[in-house]
């Protein structure tokens, strides 16, 4: 019966045609409901798979994009993603000189697709922070990473900056983000820092402009950085808040509390908006100027290490041999701050040992344009013919003493190192030894000049 769950009934006497039509119709309904059931099942499996994949990605994100709590404590911030994944990014990390690097970024779009770019950026950010590079270098490298990883239609607007240890000077690069606000600590005047550059991940290396602003902050003066999601909230009349609107809210905030709190400012924006929920990712970061006092990790001293490499003729012939020695040296603890200088010194000493000690090439050849090329051609030819000869390189890093000792000993005849061969400015040769002497604390020769040693100070990271 229909009431008991039957879908149809037939009364006697049966009309053959009606009965057949009914059966056909029911067969069709049955097939359709089986089809829907199959689709639902496939959909459920798909949903479960997406949920699982999101959980995995979320796990990776939550472990990969982590700021150290002690550094994060210097900022007051609100991060509100529009979906599970945030297309906005806030990173901060201590700099080797006791300051802080920060990055507030906004990828095109929101959700997982835009959040994915955060992974390579975070990785590069951490590495660059550790190396203590300047903001222009930071920008160049981040741009390169983004160009490499992101599809052409994706890029990241960002404010990237470095705060000094005293907390009163901020070097900022601003590309494609809404104007950073710097309210005066004493009156209600405002300084704004509008976008000066295109977002990262668009321009090629040689097109990129890495010019920065340097902002001096009075004590307790604040710096307000935010993503466009904050000011694009619309009220009931469909008017967006925009920069002017936000400035008004900041002024109200200052009048009431004499101080901007990220949570309270965000609350004011939410009250303005007709919709409680933000449509885009919202990031708001406030820094208040005061000495940072980041505890220097003085308990931590790097490991001392000594590497000795014996390069024989077969090794010297390998085109990447110097690169491999440099890589070895660069991995020694305590060499980070002076890596590039150390590479220069090693390269000079290696080239001297190989070209003059072993191959007995004459630098004077390099005096004119053709000779310069001839010199390197001869170097190649002689190197290929080389059967005997060796260079021993020793790199000793002592992080506790903040010094690296490098010595290079070749099997050649040596040279008269007392004769000063300091170069003429125009000569394309003769600068090597002068460079080494200027860069190192101490340089000395042994074994008739076939062994040269030098001490490089790693403390001297402030270069100018």
């Amino acid at each position, binding site marked *: 019966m229909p009431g008991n769950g039957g879908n149809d009934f037939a009364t006697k006497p049966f009309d053959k045609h009606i009965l057949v039509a009914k059966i056909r119709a029911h067969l069709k309904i049955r097939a359709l409901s089986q089809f829907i059931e199959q689709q639902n099942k496939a959909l459920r499996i798909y949903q479960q798979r997406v949920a699982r994949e999101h959980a995995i990605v979320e796990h990776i994100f939550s472990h990969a994009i982590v700021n150290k709590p002690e550094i994060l404590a210097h900022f007051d911030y609100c991060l509100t993603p529009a979906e599970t994944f945030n297309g906005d990014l806030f990173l901060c990390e201590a700099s080797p000189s006791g300051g802080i690097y920060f990055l507030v970024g906004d990828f095109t779009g929101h959700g997982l697709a835009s959040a994915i770019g955060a992974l390579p950026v975070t990785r590069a950010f951490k590495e660059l922070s550790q190396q203590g*590079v*300047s903001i*222009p*270098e930071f920008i*160049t*490298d981040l741009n*390169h990473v983004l160009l490499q990883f992101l599809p052409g239609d994706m890029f990241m607007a960002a404010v990237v900056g470095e705060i000094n240890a005293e907390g009163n000077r901020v070097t900022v690069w601003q590309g494609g983000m809404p104007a950073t606000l710097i309210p005066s600590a004493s009156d209600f005047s405002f300084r704004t820092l509008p976008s000066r550059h295109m977002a990262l991940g668009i321009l*090629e*290396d*040689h097109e*990129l402009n*890495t010019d920065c602003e340097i902002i001096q902050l009075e004590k307790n003066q604040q710096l307000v950085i935010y993503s466009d999601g904050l000011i694009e909230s619309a009220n009931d009349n469909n008017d967006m808040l925009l920069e002017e609107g936000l400035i008004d809210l900041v002024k109200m905030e200052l009048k009431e509390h004499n101080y901007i709190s990220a949570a309270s400012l965000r609350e004011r924006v939410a009250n303005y908006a007709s919709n409680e929920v933000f449509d885009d990712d919202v990031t708001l970061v406030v820094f208040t100027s005061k000495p940072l006092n980041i505890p220097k990790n003085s308990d931590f001293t790097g490991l001392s290490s000594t590497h000795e490499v014996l390069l024989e003729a077969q090794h010297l012939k390998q*085109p*990447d041999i*110097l*690169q491999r020695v*440099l890589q070895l040296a660069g991995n020694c603890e305590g060499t980070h701050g*002076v*890596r*590039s*200088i150390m*590479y*220069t010194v090693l*390269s*000079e000493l290696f*080239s001297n040992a190989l070209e003059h000690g072993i191959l007995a090439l004459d630098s004077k050849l*390099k005096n*004119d*344009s053709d000779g*310069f*090329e001839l010199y*390197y051609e001869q*170097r190649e030819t002689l190197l290929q013919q080389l059967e005997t000869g060796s260079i021993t390189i020793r790199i000793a890093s002592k992080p506790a003493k903040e010094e690296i000792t490098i010595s290079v000993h070749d099997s050649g005849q040596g040279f008269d190192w007392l004769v000063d061969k300091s170069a003429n*400015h*125009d*000569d*394309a*040769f003769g*600068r*090597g030894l*002068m*460079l080494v002497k*200027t*860069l190192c604390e101490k340089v000395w020769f042994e074994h008739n000049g076939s062994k040269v040693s030098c001490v490089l100070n790693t403390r001297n990271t402030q*270069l*100018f």
Partner: protein
Amino acid sequence: MDIITNYDAQRKTLTIDVDGKFDFSKVEDFRNAYADLDESAQHVAVNLARTEYMDSSALGMLLNMQKALAERKLTYSIDNSRPQVAKILKISRFDKKFEIR
């Protein structure tokens, strides 16, 4: 690990980007970078933004470029070098031959 060149016809500028390690291994690539310099060129900019380190053979290559192009009326600059690379240029007094910017 390459040298990339780009000629901007409007600004009449050849830009040479040196990636990674700037030492003797780049002798040939660097020479090729300015070998077919456009007739209209007025300026050569060497961009060292991505240069990790340089040694005296790189300094030699830079001077050698100026010698090879001596007949042309060109100005030269070295751009965006990192602090440790800038130090090498400063010690070697390269500001006398190149505009360092």
